[in-house]
């Protein structure tokens, strides 16, 4: 048989490693790749992609099928965090939803209490998200940063319009910033530059390039991630950072994951379809370079974990 010479890519760059946790808690390291996802024959993928399970500090307004998958645990962030740990979370992603002005409009004090509760309940590393309203994010994330002093948590989201306060909190308390940009490689790079200019080292940034769900913009996220990852591997230090995406939130917003009735029969059974919607959004994004997945449904999480096991087995 003729010997076929397999072309390999000689990347000169390496994706930075970002560490979460520590200070008496479990640590998780993400990034560190010197190749495209799971191509172990031409480079290293020293850390497996991790799954952060999303929990909220108040009962979620999620679709019934998703809420019931967690049972009574959703009533309290500590018990939800424990349930998430039992479901195999590598990281807990706490959303401070109650701070949303349309929700309970809670503030710094409640945020601090929720973060402490979750930290006490589990020994996993933490990510904390604000309600995605700039002024509120600033308020509750600064409080969260302070409450989590001593361990490294990831705080999100920093956007171009409000990154300063959150990055300052990361600097003061030793945390990691989640830098969110709307599906555009240059904007992602630019925000990383602005953040590092404030003095936060690049290995304390996770990039969130904005997630589109399967059928709802997935292809845009997918391609922007491939481009970011390739630019990083080519040696661009300001794009070569680990990537975080939110397939759980995006997939479960879509009708395909929510509607049982009044949809075409050709969509099939909602129970199966909804799980696949989240899982396939996640696995597709892993193929494009995701390092951290923020997910929601235990069954989808189990499927994605099993898939990552298979990709990581050499």
């Amino acid at each position: 048989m003729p010997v076929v010479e397999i072309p390999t890519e000689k990347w000169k760059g390496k994706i930075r490693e970002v560490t979460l946790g520590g200070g008496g808690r479990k640590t998780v390291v993400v990034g560190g790749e010197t190749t495209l996802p799971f191509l172990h024959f031409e480079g290293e993928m020293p850390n497996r992609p991790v799954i952060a399970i999303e929990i909220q500090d108040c009962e979620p307004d999620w679709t019934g099928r998703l809420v019931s998958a967690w049972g009574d645990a959703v009533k309290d962030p500590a018990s939800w965090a424990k349930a998430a740990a039992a479901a195999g979370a590598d990281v807990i992603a706490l959303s401070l939803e109650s701070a949303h002005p349309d929700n309970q409009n809670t503030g710094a004090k409640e945020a601090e209490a929720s973060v402490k509760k979750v930290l006490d309940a589990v020994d996993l590393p933490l990510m904390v998200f604000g309600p995605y309203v700039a002024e509120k994010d600033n308020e509750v994330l600064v409080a969260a940063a302070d409450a989590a002093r001593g361990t490294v948590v990831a705080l999100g989201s920093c956007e171009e319009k409000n990154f300063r306060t959150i990055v300052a909190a990361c600097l003061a308390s030793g945390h990691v910033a989640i830098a969110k940009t709307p599906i555009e490689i240059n904007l992602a790079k630019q925000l990383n530059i602005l953040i590092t200019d404030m003095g936060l080292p690049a290995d304390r940034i996770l990039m969130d390039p904005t997630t589109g769900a399967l059928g709802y913009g997935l292809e845009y996220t997918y391609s922007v991630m491939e481009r970011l990852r390739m630019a990083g591997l080519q040696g661009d230090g300001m794009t070569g950072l680990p990537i975080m995406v939110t397939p759980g939130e995006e997939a479960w917003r879509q009708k395909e994951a929510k509607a049982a009735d009044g949809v075409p029969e050709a969509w099939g059974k909602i129970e199966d379809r909804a799980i696949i919607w989240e899982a396939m959004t996640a696995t597709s994004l892993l193929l494009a370079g995701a390092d951290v997945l923020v997910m929601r449904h235990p069954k989808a999480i189990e499927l994605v974990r099993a898939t990552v096991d298979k990709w990581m087995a050499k």
Partner: protein
Amino acid sequence: MALTGLDIYKLLPKTNCKQCGQPTCLAFAMKLSQKQAELAACPHVSDQAKQALEAASRPPIRLVTVGVGDGRKIEVGNETVMCRHEKTFFHEPGYVVRIKDTAGDDEIAQTAAAIAAYGVERVGMDLRVSGVAVENASKNTAAFLKAVDLVKAAGDLSLVLMSADPAVMEAALAKSASSKPLIYAATKDNAAQMAALALKFKCPVAVCAEGLEAATALAEEVNKAGVEDIVLDPGTRGFADSLVTLTQLRRLALKKNFRPAGYPIITFPGEQASSPEEETLLAGQQVAKYAGIVVLERFDPSTIYPLLTLRQNIYTDPQKPIQMQPGIYTIGEPGTSSPVYVTTNFSLTYFSVAGEVEGSGLPSWLLVTDSEGLSVLTAWAAGKFDAEKIAKSAKTSGIADKVSHRKIIIPGHVATLRGELEDELSDWQIMVGPREAVDIPSFIKRTWN
């Protein structure tokens, strides 16, 4: 791989005789490289040079067609990039479902009929399953032929014929060659006979061998026997091995112009999967990473529909979003008192809204503005869906002549445009709809009378 002008020049006679109409061989070579001249214009070019130039102008991955049915045949190959953002992926992989000839006549007929009948509309496109792979699991010729007949009777499904026995294959081809089935498969034990069948019946053939080297070697052997339409099965059945092998094959074809790797690839994601979900996720990987034909073990709408959606996403041209002609669209047969909704001309947006408006049961007008194919929030953020644009299309579309009321419903996501719109469209009342289209039916029930 395209040759440069200089590469071509090296293959020409270099006599500058001008018979091609160009002053020099080099000038002719430059014209050739820019595809502004035909090689035939030079009467002196050697056969050897001709072959080299033809080989270089062939696409690096051959386009192979399976089946004949309109909208159902599988045309795969001829891809030119590793990543979709580099240009686009051109030829969507076909999904086929495996049916064994041991399944029993009724089940075979029913499954085939269900596959033939299946269709789902997404973003204005009609998505279908391409066909069926009939497997000769019984090892019995009559049972195989019966199964093929049953599947053919179900409609214009594309066929993959699966048997390792050339005699069985020949009998099946004798009945079905006109529908251009894929012969699956030539192996190291039967390659010569299967290649002969492919030539005799003018059908494409898959080569199946364990691993990249064995599969490409076998493809070369079958090609030397005169077969051009080849599909590769490198035997990989898992996530990691399939990702690596299919990536390597694509690279060999595109970057090394390695001919034996320059064929579309067939995969079997369910063969070793432990659950339908695992099969579906692996099939999804293979759609994103380089499969041409994906053979599924089961037909179930709840897994097929996500796969069809993923394929549509991955194969959309990144340069141009799927978009609608701006203008007035009707849902049902609206009259002068029907609601008017405004949205953008991104197809995904339009169809999400149109579906829900239809679901509301109230015939309606949809005013689709020109937002250059962007979704509501994207267009708003990019300044392509603002009060001025909306007002302009309300004024120029002629909607005012179609309704007697003066109410217009805008997407909830752009509620902030209300004030400005009230200024721009002073004789209209601006109603802010819900954020998500799903909530349109309950919204309109509440607010429209």
